[in-house]
């Protein structure tokens, strides 16, 4: 009989028993039919039970059989103590679910390798930029002409691949009225072959599709987009779409799940880098540089060669800029160049959320540990009440390992149930968090599959959790002394010592979670309460696209139409909106002096724009329709402080220093208030506003294809106009379309999304941790009072006062709580530095921030001890001593 059939027989043990019985029964019948005396025949067969046992052992695996019995016994124990089990499963499920959800997110964003050949051999190139104030920024975008030079420099040793960021672009397949959005990425033609990708239909872009700027209007789409948008129609090859002013032809579909290298976005359409309008510009930082090492080359050698090439290019670029300080120049010329592994892709989302996600994972781990400590206490208490049963088992010959297994299997059942509930929780929680990350301006898409990685994590977590909370009680149960227990006196103090240790651990973890949560909540509050300098309420932001570039006068006609609409107070147009995440900036020179390194942020605005945004005009005037760029400018207070010592700058002049030291002159016509431009964290930067009406180098009026129209609504909810405006814009001038529409408040909130998320989740975890710790404290204290009721009864009988009893019951617990809190405090202080980057205007070492967790824990500890103390004090010595 094979091993397999023995395993099968073991798992359906009853059937084997029945078969053996049936065979023996049929034997008896034969014997009786053949004239044997029934009683004699039965005697001859011998003890049926012994026969059955003997025959059975050949047909099953005895060790598996005993394991099965223990598993069943464990399940019965779990079901017997329904309420305890439910509490254990629930608290573990919360911790395990949160951990699993955290794993899903971290795996999807940071760990899972890209679906390409040899993902480990993919690096992202970046350089460290030292800003004007000495702060260091990671520059992970590059300029294409420099990229081409660097690619030549490492030819034969490594392949360099340019991939743009993922742009959500407006494209049209048929008429201009049916505009739709798609994620578009400009990529080097040789990327597909380097990544080992194949075409599902058609062909992929190759190096020969990426040689001449603007000459290769071809596109490849991802399998996901092919499925979503075209229902896998193979006839998609050859179809054309319009993006910007160009008509592209789809030449193929990528096979497999590859959807770009920008983890967090899923690229739908890939086009050659040569089609980017910025490909020849020497001042546009627009693409990432990825590195694939060729066989036999050394990563560090390639990095050094790339760094040397980059420094030579930077020196060449700097030659044009005069007047920069020697030190600043040296810093620029020696920027460290990094080559970091990018097996999981490389994206801004990763950079923004890496530390936050790990921090959340740490919080979930702490909550899980608190839950484990709770359940360990429950199991210990249960094992204690079963000590007689255990002692009996040992007396009857059960080995220590068998006892350990028995208790561990019970724990495993609890962990398994919790894991199942936790998976269900993670199933819901992970997408919930992703949807919260999703800022209004940039949609995040992460693949969260139910795959072998997730399953593997769940299994490892279940086993780890079982061992964490089950190992100590199991070992303790196995060390039982049958002689002592059966006589009626085990050492109860040993159990209590373990429980107090667990309580101290719980309190320590809880302290850390509370402290971190407090810091995140305060950070979020300080950020949201920070003034932005303008009023985003009632402002709608519409990205507006013209079929063909339009002159400023046409845009002005559109604004006039909007201003005449009921429900709109004012309207204006600008090159971009505030806090959009994009920036235009340059160096400024006053009186022909060399520029300092402070960047001035710039925006092109129409007359009335300051009024729409409610930015106060402090001096001078707003733009007029006849103002042009270059010529007139409005600056803010920070600008005036930086260049005019804070005096009224109206009437003064400055120059914008462009590439190759080209200078454009402006006269300041107005002074306005400061606003948050790039983000809400940093101090408001110097800003200069220029007229939307601009002249090109030859003095001709420039036509604009895309701009942002801002309107202020009379209704308090600007979205009340959301359905009307996309119809009214083409009604005003048929050339215009709205490609996206958002309230400005949402754009502002996008800047605190991470902080909101951290505050919300950590507050949730803090509540759970506090609850679990409270339940744990209560449970342990209650248990110890129940155990010591005889002792307490005697003490009271000989004259102990209520206060003495209360002290007796709580003293050790208070010591455990204090020890735990101190441990948590020390650990929190040690980790304070790692948190700094995620905080705003609050420090992990602030005294108030340390007092908060103390106060919360103290309150919970008091609440948790009251019932047990009352119970202890109300023990009636007479009743107690009589029952014992």
């Amino acid at each position, binding site marked *: *009989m094979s091993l397999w059939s*023995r395993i099968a027989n073991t798992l359906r043990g009853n059937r084997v028993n029945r*078969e*053996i019985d*049936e*065979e*023996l*029964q*049929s*034997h008896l*019948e*034969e*014997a009786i039919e*053949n004239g044997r005396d029934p009683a004699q025949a039965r005697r*001859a*067969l*011998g*003890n049926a039970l*012994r*026969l059955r046992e*003997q*025959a059975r052992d*050949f*047909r099953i695996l005895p060790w598996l059989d005993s394991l099965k019995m223990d598993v069943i016994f464990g399940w019965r124990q779990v079901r017997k103590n329904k309420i305890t089990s439910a509490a254990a499963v629930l608290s573990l499920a919360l911790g395990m679910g949160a951990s699993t959800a955290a794993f899903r997110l971290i795996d999807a964003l940071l760990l899972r390798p890209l679906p390409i050949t040899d993902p480990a051999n993919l690096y992202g190139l970046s350089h460290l930029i030292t800003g004007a104030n000495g702060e260091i920024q990671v520059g992970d975008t590059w300029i294409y002409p420099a990229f081409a030079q660097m690619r030549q420099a490492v030819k034969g040793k490594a392949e360099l691949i340019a991939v743009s960021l993922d742009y959500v672009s407006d494209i049209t397949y048929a008429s201009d009225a049916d505009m739709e959005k798609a994620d578009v990425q400009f990529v080097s033609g040789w990327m597909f072959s380097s990544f080992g990708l194949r075409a599902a239909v058609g062909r992929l872009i190759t190096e020969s599709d990426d040689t001449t700027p603007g000459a290769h209007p071809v596109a490849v789409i991802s399998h996901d987009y092919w499925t979503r948008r075209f229902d896998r129609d193979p006839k998609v090859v050859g179809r054309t779409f319009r993006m910007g002013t160009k008509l592209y032809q789809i030449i193929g579909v990528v096979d497999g799940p590859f959807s770009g290298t920008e983890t967090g976005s899923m690229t739908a359409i890939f086009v050659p880098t040569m089609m980017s309008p910025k490909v020849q510009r020497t001042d546009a930082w627009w693409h990432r540089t990825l590195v694939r090492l060729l066989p036999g080359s050394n990563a560090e050698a390639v990095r050094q060669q790339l760094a040397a090439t980059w420094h030579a290019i930077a020196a060449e670029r700097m030659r044009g800029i005069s007047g920069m300080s020697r030190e600043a120049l040296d810093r620029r010329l020696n920027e460290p160049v990094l080559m970091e592994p990018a097996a999981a892709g490389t994206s801004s989302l990763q950079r923004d959320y890496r530390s936050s996600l790990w921090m959340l994972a740490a919080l979930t781990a702490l909550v899980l540990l608190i839950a484990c400590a709770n359940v360990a206490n429950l199991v210990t208490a249960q094992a204690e009440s079963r000590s007689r049963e255990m002692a009996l088992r040992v007396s009857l010959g059960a080995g220590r390992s068998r006892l350990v297994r028995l208790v561990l299997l019970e724990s495993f059942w609890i962990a398994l149930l919790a894991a199942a509930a936790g998976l269900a929780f993670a199933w819901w929680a992970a997408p919930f968090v992703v949807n919260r990350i999703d800022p209004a301006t940039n949609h995040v898409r992460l693949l969260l599959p139910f795959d072998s990685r997730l399953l593997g994590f769940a299994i490892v977590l279940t086993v780890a959790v079982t061992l964490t909370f089950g190992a100590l009680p199991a070992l303790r149960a196995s060390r039982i002394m049958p002689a002592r227990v059966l006589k009626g006196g085990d050492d109860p103090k040993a159990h209590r010592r373990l429980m107090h240790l667990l309580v101290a651990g719980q309190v320590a973890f809880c302290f850390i979670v509370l402290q971190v949560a407090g810091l995140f909540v305060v950070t979020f509050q300080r950020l949201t309460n920070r003034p932005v300098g303008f009023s985003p309420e009632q402002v709608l932001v519409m990205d507006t696209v013209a079929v063909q570039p339009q002159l400023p006068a046409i845009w002005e006609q559109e604004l006039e139409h909007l201003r005449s609409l009921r429900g709109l107070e004012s309207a204006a147009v600008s090159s971009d909106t505030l806090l959009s995440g994009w920036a235009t900036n340059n160096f400024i020179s006053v009186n022909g002096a060399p520029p300092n390194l402070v960047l001035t942020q710039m925006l092109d605005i129409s007359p009335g724009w300051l009024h729409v945004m409610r930015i106060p005009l402090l001096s001078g005037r707003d733009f007029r329709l006849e103002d042009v760029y270059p010529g007139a400018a409005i600056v803010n207070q920070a600008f005036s402080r930086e260049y005019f010592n804070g005096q009224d700058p109206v009437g003064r002049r400055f120059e914008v220093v462009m590439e190759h030291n080209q200078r454009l002159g402006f006269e300041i016509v107005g002074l306005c208030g400061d606003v948050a431009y790039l983000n809400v964290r940093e101090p408001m930067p110097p800003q200069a506003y220029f007229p939307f009406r601009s002249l090109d180098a030859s003095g001709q009026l420039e036509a604009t294809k895309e701009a942002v129209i801002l309107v202020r609504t009379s209704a308090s909810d600007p979205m009340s106009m959301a359905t009307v405006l996309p119809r009214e814009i083409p009604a005003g001038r048929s050339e215009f379309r709205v490609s996206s529409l958002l309230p400005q408040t949402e754009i502002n909130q996008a800047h605190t999304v991470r902080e909101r998320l951290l505050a919300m989740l950590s507050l949730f975890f803090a509540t759970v941790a506090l609850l679990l710790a409270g339940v744990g404290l209560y449970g342990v204290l209650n248990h110890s009072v129940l155990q010591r009721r005889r002792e307490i009864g005697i003490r009271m009988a000989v004259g102990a006062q209520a206060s003495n009893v209360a002290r007796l019951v709580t003293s050790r617990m208070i010591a455990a709580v204090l020890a735990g809190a101190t441990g948590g405090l020390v650990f929190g202080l040690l980790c304070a530095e790692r948190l700094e980057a995620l905080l705003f205007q609050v420090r992990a070492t602030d005294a108030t921030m340390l007092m908060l967790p103390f106060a919360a824990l103290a309150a919970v500890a008091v609440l948790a001890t009251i019932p047990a103390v009352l119970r202890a004090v109300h023990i009636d010595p007479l009743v107690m001593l009589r029952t014992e």
Partner: protein
Amino acid sequence: MPKSDALQGALDLLVLKVLMRRSPLHGYAIMTAIQEISDDALRVEEGSLYPALHRMEEAGWVRARWINKPNGRRARIYELSPAGKKQLVVEEARWNHVTAAVNRVLRMA
């Protein structure tokens, strides 16, 4: 070398031999067959027959299946497997070896 429990192996040998000639048989038939052929000289203990059958089944020497008897009950019948045929040759050789040795001792002593 024959082991000390050579006589216990005799049961296996007998069962295999009977099954070789007349399989398939159920347990009771195997028992009576041994009894008849040996003219009641050898009586198989029911108590050891079934464990032996199950052990041989586990070893893969015999195969068992259920059949329906005319009275509606089921009986478990056994037949020799190819491995069992090989084992029979081994067991027979061993038995002959042991009995020859015993005979030698009887003659010599």
